[in-house]
């Protein structure tokens, strides 16, 4: 166990976001796993389901380690958490390199999926609490920067990994070497976060807490937070928002192709890939843009926009989408920006409701909503599209029912957001003076 690294006098809070980014940009590589799939399939004779296994296990481990490791992260501080993330994430690649070299696929699943997945979960929540403590006046912007990094990680890794595989070769030796270089490079890159991260001194916190917009009143422990209706309302909000976003993201390329297949300007495979890239940009921009906006208009209002306007965008696509390509693209971009914004704004929403006391641990527990949405979103869209195809439908009709379901889910999320109220005082952690009074009364 280690004590959190306290900032020395004169430490700038603007050193904390790059520390957070060095971790999030690294672990965001997870969403570029698909680059390794084709070479793994040909080198180790795997099918598509098998080659997806390391990624799927990594995402499951992300949710589990964030949920169960959150309290440890709060107790031991961000440097401990970033070190664990660095060791697990890099070791995952090194174990995978050994697996590829010896043609033992189970080692890749264990390394990248299990060990690396723990690194993803601990790394994802590692800077959240610290950023909120440094930026109590702008928590949305601060966590938006870090969580944007998670989206940005795949943008870096995707071309980088592809370039590496084309240089080293797609056989098992080439893949092993690529895994080795990834493991070592990410270890060096993440070291910056470990070295730079600091928790604010009490004096610094007092100064930032008195800044306009900062409010550090209510404090609720993670154990108490999961007993409140507010936590579960937010859980539903996140789950619904993520499911709706994944609904587009999962089938983006075939969706735009199907929508305009019968039009005078059908969409080529190359243009569809460009559409997917544009959605990634919207997802990333939404993380920093909408999350920062939430500092100005409030968390509840921004989620009203994500869920309410998001439902409207889905309705527009369903009703008018095939009549206008720009309208279809615009609506999809807005939905994806809300998807990213939903992820990035939720730590600040948690801070508003539960305070900074154990906000990282509470955030970790809330991320189980992401795990469910990650299964639910693709399942709805793929299952329905397959069934509609079997029923002889084609074009936009393949997705109309899915869009209807997404609108319904967003409405459920909207209602859950409306039900969020301030946390009842019985869940609050007593302030030091109140705790002393309680102690005195008990001993009297």
């Amino acid at each position: 166990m280690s004590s959190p690294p306290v900032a020395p006098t004169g430490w700038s809070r603007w050193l904390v976001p790059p520390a957070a980014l060095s971790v999030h940009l690294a672990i965001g590589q997870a969403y570029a796993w698909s680059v390794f799939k084709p070479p793994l399939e040909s080198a180790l004779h795997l099918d598509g389901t098998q080659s997806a296994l390391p990624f799927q296990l990594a995402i499951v481990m992300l949710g589990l380690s964030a949920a169960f490791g959150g309290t440890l992260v709060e107790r031991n501080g961000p440097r401990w958490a970033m070190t664990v993330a660095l060791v697990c994430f890099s070791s995952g690649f090194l174990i995978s390199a050994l697996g590829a070299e010896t043609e033992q696929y189970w080692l890749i699943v264990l390394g990248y999926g299990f060990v690396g997945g723990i690194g993803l979960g601990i790394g994802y929540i590692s800077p959240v609490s610290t950023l909120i403590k440094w930026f109590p006046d702008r928590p949305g912007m601060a966590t938006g920067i870090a969580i944007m990094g998670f989206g940005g990680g795949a943008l870096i890794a995707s071309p980088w990994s592809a370039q590496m595989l084309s240089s080293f070769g797609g056989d098992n030796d080439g893949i092993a070497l690529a895994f080795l270089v990834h493991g070592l490079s990410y270890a060096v890159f993440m070291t910056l976060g470990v070295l730079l991260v600091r928790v604010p001194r009490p004096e610094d916190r007092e100064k930032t807490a008195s800044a306009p917009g900062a409010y550090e009143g209510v404090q609720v422990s993670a154990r108490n937070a999961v007993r409140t209706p507010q936590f579960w309302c937010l859980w539903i909000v996140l789950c619904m928002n993520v499911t709706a976003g994944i609904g587009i993201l999962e089938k983006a390329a075939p969706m735009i192709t199907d929508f305009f297949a019968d039009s005078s300007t059908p969409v080529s495979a190359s243009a569809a890939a460009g559409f997917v890239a544009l959605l990634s940009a919207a997802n990333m921009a939404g993380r920093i843009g909408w999350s920062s906006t939430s500092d100005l208009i409030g968390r509840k209002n921004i989620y009203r926009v994500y869920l309410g306007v998001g439902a409207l965008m889905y309705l527009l696509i369903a009703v008018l989408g095939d009549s206008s390509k720009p309208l279809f693209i615009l609506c999809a971009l807005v939905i994806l920006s809300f998807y990213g914004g939903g992820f990035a704004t939720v730590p600040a929403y948690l801070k508003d409701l539960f305070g900074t006391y154990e906000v990282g641990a509470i955030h970790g527990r809330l991320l189980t909503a992401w795990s469910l949405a990650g299964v639910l979103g693709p399942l709805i869209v793929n299952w329905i599209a397959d069934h509609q195809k079997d029923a002889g439908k084609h074009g936009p009709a393949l997705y109309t029912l899915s869009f209807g379901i997404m609108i319904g889910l967003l409405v459920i999320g909207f209602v859950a957001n409306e039900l969020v109220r301030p946390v009842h005082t019985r869940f609050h952690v007593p302030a030091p003076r109140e705790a002393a009074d309680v102690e005195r009364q008990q001993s009297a």
Partner: protein
Amino acid sequence: MSNDSSPRDRRSLIVLAWLWVGAPFAYGVYELVQKASRLFHG
């Protein structure tokens, strides 16, 4: 918000830290823009 007693030292560290994460991020964004432009030219 920090009580910066040696702003020059911290400023160079801040620039270095942001470059460390900004350079690969810029590379990722550049590649993304290249790919996204295919939607309009593909």
